């Protein structure tokens, strides 16, 4: 969040990657991509490439971490060593530990934890390529992976950031905007419940700018939400077809 270099937004309000202020990066969502997992999803959000696998409900290890009255959700956000400019050590960094916590806390409100006492569900997030906004993309994909695993959910959780770049509030910052911009506000949201489950901020915003950024981020979430649903539907159509094929074969 320091000095400016090249202009990130031109006079017509167009950003370096060709987007308008309130425009999302291209998104690609896929569900059921890891055969060994109970639920899984893959997201490409701009150049971010993130894979999420879900296991459970299953026994909790070590046992004393299990809870008699509810399921324990565990979450690991992890970056591949080759996902960033300088090779990242595979050992979890403090940043990854914090993000694992806030991602978990952004997903918990969507789950009926009390339905599965003494069990655990693991959400493993692997960032294969990072380009700004990985925590939001991780949440969007993790919600899909949880849904894919068959866990009942209050709503999907969908996440997107807004921020401030060269005096404008813009949607969905990529890496360079994140580094050179003035503020970044990642938001996770359950559209049907109008509930914000993750909110963080780096940088400096006036209260008015902040309100504008939160609203813009939620609008971004609302645009991604139907893509999530579409991805789930595609998976289930596919499953249905495969089942049909099998029936035919038989």
């Amino acid at each position, binding site marked *: *969040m320091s000095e400016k270099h090249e202009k990130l937004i031109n006079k017509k309000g167009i950003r370096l990657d060709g987007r308008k202020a309130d425009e999302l990066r291209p998104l690609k969502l896929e569900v059921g991509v890891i055969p060994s997992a109970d639920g899984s999803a893959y997201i490409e959000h701009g150049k971010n490439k993130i894979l999420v696998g879900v296991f459970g409900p299953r026994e909790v290890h070590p046992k004393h971490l299990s809870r008699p009255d509810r399921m324990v959700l565990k979450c690991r956000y992890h970056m591949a060593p080759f996902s960033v400019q300088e090779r990242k050590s595979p050992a979890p960094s403090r940043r990854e530990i914090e993000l694992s*916590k*806030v991602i978990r806390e952004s997903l918990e409100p969507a789950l009926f934890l009390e339905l599965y006492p003494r069990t655990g569900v693991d959400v493993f997030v692997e960032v294969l390529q990072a380009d700004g906004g990985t925590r939001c993309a991780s949440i969007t994909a993790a919600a899909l992976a949880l849904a894919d695993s068959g866990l009942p959910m209050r709503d999907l959780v969908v996440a997107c950031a807004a921020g401030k770049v060269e005096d404008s509030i813009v949607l969905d910052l990529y890496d360079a905007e994140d580094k050179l911009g003035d503020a970044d506000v990642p938001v996770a949201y*359950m559209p049907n419940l109008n509930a914000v489950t993750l*909110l*963080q*901020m780096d940088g400096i*915003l006036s*209260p008015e700018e902040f309100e504008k950024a939160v609203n813009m981020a*939620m609008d971004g979430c609302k645009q991604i939400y139907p893509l999530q649903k579409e991805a789930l539907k595609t998976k289930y159509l596919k499953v249905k077809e495969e089942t049909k094929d099998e029936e035919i074969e038989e």
Partner: protein
Amino acid sequence: MSSLITKVRQKQIAQTIDAGNRLDGRALTDYREFTLEQGVIEKAEGSARVRLGKSEVLVGVKVATGEPFSDTPNAGVMTVNAELVPLASPSYEPGPPDENSIELARIVDRGIRESKAIDTEKLCIESGKKVFVVFVDIYVLNYDGNLIDAAALAAMGALLNTKMPNYEVVDGEVKLKQGYTPLPMKSHPITVTTGKINDKLIVDPGFEEEQVMDARISMAINDEGNICAIQKGLAGYFTPQQIIEASKLAQEKAVEMRKKLKW
């Protein structure tokens, strides 16, 4: 941590708040009394102790020389570390920092860093080679709720109390000289945490309130009343309206506290 108080007590707390009151007599938006003492560890370059209710946080600052990061060759380095010292609560355990102490350190770090509280460019000794490194160590000595605000306050108190050694560079070697200069500070962020219990917002949650709290949101507010860092925490949610409300509460409380602190 929900097992630290009984179910009955949990219910009592929630009901009282539902009725617009708090068990310790505060209004929902009242902040507890706090004290800030500076210079409590003479041997550290800076230090401060905050007492907020019975929460007690000590912050010590050490200044050393080291290398800058390659992408900011002219800037000094600040690192924040937090320890939930095991004597501060029966639920804390010795060992490497867990997610709670890491989150605490990173929230405090963010408030200071994003508000540009330290003028890090003035900590450069030789561009790209040698800069001052400021270690901010947060030591939680008693846990009675709202450690985030207490730690953020103690960290700022300690930084404002920090003296850097004078030095000159002779043949590329740093030589310490007589005397000290205060750490160059540009901004005074104050962090205010709001909790949500049964859909009601409360300011500065206490220990027992934290046991029944659904969610919290912490906001660092700078001298101009702008927001410079936010962290939502816990497994609950806020409505967008509640977030705006929390932001207003944070502004108000920061003004009150700033007055008291004379920052």
